[in-house]
């Protein structure tokens, strides 16, 4: 099967899961409600459509940024969390909640993400090496995590604390067009920057020195990675809270199908991320009882068995 055929199948899966996401929930809305003029269809238009679009976009940028970071750092364990952007954006959002600036939550999260990107760029500018990048990102992530914990402990009332924790766990619940639209330009520009990294990531397969000898500008590549990850992950955290796992697991799941070449994984990872988030979010709503399962929980429930099966298979082949 050609690469195009595989991509088409993955895209078809995304469409299928998108449709399922419109139908699935506490109330099952069949497609026939659309042409029969059933008032249930309003649930789909007003609640589920923006949520499904958000899931699609969010999953796509998380999968894409995971694939870019794994390629850039040449490390299959890398994901957007290692850069510290998601923790920093979360810190900004938590500050907005704790200090009661709820209207400015998106702006606070983006500003914090931008601040951490600037710090990361300043810390790694001269070295341009993957190890320095991981170390700086890890330090930023720990710092943001510590400051977030500090903010929670000085929160003025228990409601604020509960709201923070609720938000930190990440969900698409009750998100609408008003949440998605301000984030779209950031997500779009960031994703475009990330897609530009492909050829340089391929050259990095042979190491940093070889890549430079092949004409790759490592400084430019690093700027693309930092800016692209900062914009996409920062904006997605600002809308939905921290949604982990997608960036780590999706490129892994797709390597056996699309090959290990980093550039060949970028588009599939975006599609795969969208599929995983759509599936997980539908599962969230199908949980029994009045409430919803957290997106992160559903994600782990779907992704972890796949991942374990993959690990076992790779061990059999002697790769791990």
């Amino acid at each position, binding site marked *: 099967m050609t690469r195009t055929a595989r991509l088409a199948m993955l895209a078809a899966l995304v469409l299928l899961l998108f449709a399922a996401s419109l139908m699935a929930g506490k109330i099952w809305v069949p497609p026939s409600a659309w042409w029969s003029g059933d008032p249930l269809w309003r649930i789909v238009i007003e609640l589920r459509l923006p949520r499904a679009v958000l899931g699609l976009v969010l999953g796509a940028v998380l999968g894409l940024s995971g694939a870019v970071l794994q390629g850039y750092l*040449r490390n299959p364990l890398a994901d957007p969390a290692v850069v510290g952007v998601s923790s920093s954006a979360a810190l900004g959002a938590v500050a907005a909640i704790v200090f009661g600036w709820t209207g400015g939550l998106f702006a606070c999260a983006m500003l914090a993400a931008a601040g951490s990107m600037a710090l990361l760029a300043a810390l790694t500018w001269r070295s341009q090496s993957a190890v320095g990048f991981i170390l700086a990102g890890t330090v930023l992530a720990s710092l943001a995590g510590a400051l977030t914990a500090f903010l929670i402990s000085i929160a003025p009332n228990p409601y604020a604390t509960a709201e923070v924790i609720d938000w930190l766990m990440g969900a698409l619940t009750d998100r609408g067009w008003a949440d998605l639209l301000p984030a779209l330009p950031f997500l779009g520009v960031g994703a475009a920057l990330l897609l530009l990294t*492909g*050829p*340089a990531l*391929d*050259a*990095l*397969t*042979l*190491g940093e*020195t*070889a890549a*430079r*000898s*092949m*004409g*790759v*500008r490592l400084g430019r590549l690093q700027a693309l990675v930092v800016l692209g990850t900062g914009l996409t992950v920062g904006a997605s955290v600002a809308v939905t809270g921290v949604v982990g796992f997608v960036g780590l697991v999706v490129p892994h799941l797709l390597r056996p199908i699309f*090959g*290990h*070449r*980093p550039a060949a994984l970028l588009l599939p990872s975006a599609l795969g991320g969208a599929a995983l988030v759509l599936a997980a979010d539908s599962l969230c709503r199908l949980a029994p009882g009045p409430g919803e399962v957290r997106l992160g929980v559903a994600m782990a429930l779907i992704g972890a068995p796949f991942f374990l099966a993959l690990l076992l298979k790779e061990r059999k082949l002697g*790769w791990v």
Partner: protein
Amino acid sequence: MGIGQSNADHPHPSHAAAQRGKGEGGPGPGRDVPPLTFASLSVTLSNRLVLQDITATLRPGRVTAILGPNGAGKSTLVKAAAALVPASGAVRLGHRPIATFDPNERARRIGYLPQDAAIHWNVPAREVIALGRAPHHSPFAALGDADRAAIAEAVAATETAGLLDRPVHELSGGERARVLLARVLAGEPDWLLADEPLASLDPAHQIDILDRLRARAAAGAGVVIVLHDLVQAGRAADDVLLLESGAVAAFGPAADVLTPANLRAVFAIDVTVAADRAGRPLCIPVGRADG
């Protein structure tokens, strides 16, 4: 400078052998290759002066071996030649300092095969070799006819046709070295700089790789190899640049540089130099020099 002319200026016993190898080394550069000149080149890394005032002109159409003890600056010299380390003084391709080249153009002119043979992802060998064409086409374009022809010639020259679909992590060290050499050859560089391309290869593969590099030089390209094996250096090199503590100890035709006196001064060993069947110097280390 024409290649024939440069050889005529410096007749050398191994010239005939180089001619014999012609046609096995993959694509020739297809144009006159300018000489590669180091002009008062100095490199300081981590506050240590690694290379000091190197001045030499390496000529195309010949294999130049860079020899020297550990830490003499051999790897740094080839990296400087590919503009991969910050340097003072100049490296010039013809009359043009390589620092003024656009990175892509420089990559098309100077191919660099690093000592570190890491391939981080388990991609099929054909994708590694195709990377060699990256400086030749725009980043998102598919491979064109010229790319495919260059790859095919590089594959033929390195006898890697049977490896193309195999994941690189399943290849043996020798197979992987050939794939990585094919990657550089596919780029059809004017100058090919190889840092210890023979490390971890068995003798048969060492001879194969050296023969391919010689054939490449015979086709008109410039070839520079960092070596630490004196026997292989004598076998492969037309010219030898002997480095000691970051400075040039001797530079010239192999027969003139690979002398017991030079090798004793630089390596502190006693060497017997004989002539092999082709008349090239065969250096046999006998023991550490006394005193």
